[in-house]
């Protein structure tokens, strides 16, 4: 049997994507589709006093205008549910405004342009209330929740941090801030809804087909079997397409009303408010250590936004509980309930911003100790999970740090800030650790021999650009001992077997393990002489006891070299390296792409990305890609990702862990630490822009 799993093969959906044959939700062919445009609220809190849509209705080509006064009845929103993404998402169901940019009307017209123009003509008068928008001044709306979003306790306490802070040889007590961010996927949120008799098909841009199916069916009060969700290609999700939004619900309702296909696409500007974002955070980190660098205390407290209209609690401090050893520990996640758009998961919710604070604080401690920051981390490597006291399934943070240091040339780093000047550039290096929780979810897969040498795989899993199609083909090919080209992978239809979809980096492992199971069963029957033609097997995967018995994480170490312009304070990345331990790698090429994509986003969080909030209006102000900065090619000269050879037998039958989010975890902190090493500016408020560096340059 040839080794196929792990090989760096090109993505099998690549040719379809670059030739335009991959069809996205807004491009789905439909018979005489009509176009919906959403109008959104221009206040953040209050209610609609009156709404005048007469002008919009008079526009040529307009077929339908819905507001809360005449939109069809839908199932009501429920505040709590086991699967938050399956909850009903009723649209235009009330005059109440809960956040700026909330949809207040839908116009459907024969052309996209006419719909948009008419939507702009809807005249809404509001009764404005006093919303709470300021994370740091939310008063009684500042809460201490019991649990975070993944069901972990929101706080943990071991020993006495205050005492350790008083008695430590050195200590760090600093506050870090991270800004609001938007996913800004290349593909906007889009839906095309088509009715055929009493059956509704919604082509939509979602990560979780199963949840979307439940959400859309319940919201529209339809029997589940009368709804099909199709999401064959998704142009980026990053957590922002976990929920279903108004585009899908309203397209489905309007298509029923008009008896023809309806397409609704959010504009780039609308995406900032209508869809979820990453909430801003204020994080306090306290560390105490002995003279030799042994940590005696770690405390990490975070305050982040949750929306009054939702219950998301980002697990910002959760992984801090498992990263380093220390006898005295405290973590706490607090929230401010704000009248802002709804925050949600965005690539590595929790660690992505938690490590921006923690891993910069560790660097600050190393400076105070006059100790190498890698040596400091090695010194505090825990033997088992420091709070749960269970073994790690696998943990290779030490190897990641050491191998990375060798490859990067860490020994050439001068620990003194500002010591390495090259022309106008002050050059510095930084390091940070990566940790990301590893998850497995219940999944099913079906594999069918379509001939003696060809097979088809079916799952309602999505490929949000990550490479899912390709790794599934590899798993089936290797297990069935057929060429990769002989495998057809069908994803993204709700009628296919149930999977958890794409999110939390659990997709490849959960679905991959289910598929492995299906293929092994099929192979066993083939070997017995059954089939082949038409032979089918179902497989499944589910988290077992090993998720309770072992602490499961993926790890990494980031190394960054930056130049800071001594005249202007401009920071430019020079090179970056990440070494990762993510269990078994299922495709070296797509895994690398995921990892460097995450690292680049980490650079973005460190240096560029910010969604400014206007506190007077409760509205975001960088709503297009000219103003919302992410790195451009010129910002990313060289990024390398390497993975260790690993197999985590406690994680799942494939031995793999998630890679989709690991790359962003800690990456920004390595950049921030490199900035400090380059020029001595310790910037604790991200992103690290010129204005925050200038004061440190003489």
């Amino acid at each position, binding site marked *: 049997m040839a080794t196929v799993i792990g090989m760096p093969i090109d993505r099998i959906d690549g040719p379809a994507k670059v030739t335009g044959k991959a069809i996205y939700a807004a491009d789905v062919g439909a018979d005489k589709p009509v176009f919906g445009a959403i109008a959104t609220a221009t206040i953040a809190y209050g209610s609609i006093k009156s709404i005048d849509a007469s002008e919009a209705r008079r526009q040529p080509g307009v077929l339908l205008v819905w507001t809360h006064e005449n939109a069809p009845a839908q199932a009501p929103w429920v505040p709590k549910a086991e699967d938050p993404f399956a909850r009903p998402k009723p649209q235009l169901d009330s005059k109440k405004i809960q956040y700026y940019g909330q949809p207040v009307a839908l116009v459907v017209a024969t052309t996209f342009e006419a719909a948009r*123009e008419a939507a702009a003509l809807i005249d809404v008068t509001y009764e404005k209330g006093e919303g709470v928008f300021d994370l740091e001044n939310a008063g009684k709306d500042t809460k201490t929740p019991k649990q975070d979003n993944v069901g972990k306790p929101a706080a943990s306490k071991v020993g006495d941090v205050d005492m350790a802070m008083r008695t430590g040889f050195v200590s760090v007590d600093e506050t870090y801030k991270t800004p609001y961010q938007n996913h800004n996927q290349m593909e906007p949120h889009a839906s095309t809804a088509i009715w055929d008799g009493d059956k509704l098909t919604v082509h939509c841009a979602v990560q979780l087909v199963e949840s979307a199916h439940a959400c859309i069916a319940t919201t529209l009060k339809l029997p589940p079997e009368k709804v099909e969700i199709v999401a064959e290609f998704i142009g980026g999700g990053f957590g922002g397409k976990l929920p279903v939004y108004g585009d899908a619900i309203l397209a489905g309702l309007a298509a029923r009303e008009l008896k023809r296909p309806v397409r609704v696409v959010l504009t780039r500007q609308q995406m900032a408010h209508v869809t979820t974002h990453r909430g801003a955070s204020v994080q306090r980190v306290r560390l105490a250590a002995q003279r030799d660098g042994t940590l005696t205390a770690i405390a990490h407290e975070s305050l982040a936004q949750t929306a009054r209209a939702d219950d998301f609690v980002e697990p910002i401090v959760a992984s801090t509980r498992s990263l380093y050893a220390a006898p005295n520990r405290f973590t706490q996640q607090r929230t401010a309930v704000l009248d802002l758009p709804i925050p949600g998961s965005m690539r590595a919710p929790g660690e992505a911003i938690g490590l921006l604070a923690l891993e910069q604080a560790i660097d600050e401690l190393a400076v105070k100790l006059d100790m190498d920051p890698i040596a400091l981390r090695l010194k505090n490597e825990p033997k088992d999970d420091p709070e749960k006291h269970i073994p790690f399934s696998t943990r290779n943070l030490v190897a990641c740090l050491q191998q990375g240091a060798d490859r990067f040339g860490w020994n050439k780093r001068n620990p003194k800030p500002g010591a390495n000047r090259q022309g106008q550039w002050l050059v510095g290096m930084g390091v940070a650790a990566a940790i990301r929780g590893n998850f497995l979810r219940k999944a099913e897969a079906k594999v069918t021999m379509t001939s003696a040498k060809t097979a088809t795989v079916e799952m309602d899993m999505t490929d949000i650009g990550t490479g899912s199609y390709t790794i599934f083909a590899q798993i089936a090919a290797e297990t069935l001992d057929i060429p990769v080209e002989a495998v057809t992978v069908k994803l993204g239809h709700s009628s296919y077997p149930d999977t958890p979809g794409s999110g939390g980096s659990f997709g490849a492992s959960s679905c991959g393990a289910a598929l492995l199971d299906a293929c092994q069963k099929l192979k066993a029957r083939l070997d017995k002489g059954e089939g082949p033609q038409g032979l089918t097997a179902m497989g499944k995967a589910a988290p077992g006891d090993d998720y309770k018995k072992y602490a499961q994480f993926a790890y990494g170490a980031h190394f960054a070299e930056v130049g800071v312009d001594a005249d*202007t304070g401009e920071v430019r990345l020079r090179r970056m390296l990440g070494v990762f331990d993510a269990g078994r790698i299922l495709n070296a090429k797509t895994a690398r792409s995921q990892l460097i994509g995450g690292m680049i986003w980490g650079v973005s969080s460190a240096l560029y990305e910010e969604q*400014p909030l*206007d506190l*007077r209006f409760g509205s975001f*102000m960088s*709503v297009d890609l000219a103003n919302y*900065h992410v790195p451009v090619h010129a910002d990313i000269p060289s990024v390398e990702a390497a993975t260790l050879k690993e197999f985590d037998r406690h994680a799942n039958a494939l031995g793999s862990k998630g890679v989709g989010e690991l790359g962003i975890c800690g990456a920004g902190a390595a950049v921030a630490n490199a900035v400090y090493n380059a020029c001595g500016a310790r910037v604790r408020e991200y992103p690290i822009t010129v*204005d925050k560096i*200038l004061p440190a340059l003489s």
Partner: protein
Amino acid sequence: MKAFTFERATDVDAAVASSAKPGARFIAGGTNLLDLMKVEVEKPAHLIDISRLPLRDIAETPEGDLTVGALVSNTDLAAHPKVRERYPMLARAVVNGASAQLRNQATTGGNLLQRTRCPYFYDVAKSCNKRTPGAGCSALQGINRMTAVLGGSDACIAAHPSDMAVALMALEATIETKGGSKGGRKIAIADFYRLPGDTPHRETNLEPGELIVSVALPPPPAGQQTYRKVRDRASYAFALVSVAAILDLDADKRVRGARLALGGVGTMPWRALDAEKGMVGAEAGDKAFAAAGAVAMAGARGRGGNDFKIPLAKRVVARTFAGLATSISKG
């Protein structure tokens, strides 16, 4: 976007004649106008596409000027050998703007007339005096990191976003037009832009329907030129501060002549004449260059988010002249 009628102009006179139609606007590359139409900041009733008019040449006049047709793309302008040789600061300014794709599409005339990037100007749900005179300015107490510190008023602090125009300011270009009440004229770039005052919706002294046909560059002044742009990422970002500078030194390393214009800090592309004058005769060195930065920013007023631009601009002015002095002394 509002529905509009569209025509493709066949020649300059026809374009000018059509501009009398109600709500008519010229469209060249469309890279600015179309974006603004989509968000209904601009709502022209009629578009006159001038992109096929024969205004794509760069030519030398007998007087030694270089005339640049209004439809010369930003890419072609920056790549032209005469521009690179004689006006390197202009070539640098242009390639420091936008992205390669945009520069291929954007034109010289359109670049001069691009509108501010102030987020409140772009958001029709917020008040903006540029969009609706008298409505109030949301930027004064708002998200104003990118706004101007020079030339602002209580009605508007929106920064002019062009890089190209900053270099043209320093090079004392002349804008040539057709149409308008005079049938066409030459406007020195120093007289082209307006300060916002209490009429920030009027950004230039062009008359309605007046078509830019070319931009004339006089022979470059003696000295070394450069353009330095400070921005939040390495490419594809508007200037926080930019500096177009020319420095000419005599044999004793005294300043014989200097030109200085700034971008990112002004409500219009900003010429710093006083700073230039103050440098003449001074010994080239940190003292004179720091003084130039201080004089250039003397009247600056920060509004919170943009305060950092004042010290930043002073530094960049001083360091840019210092860089020019070093490169002159190296020959």
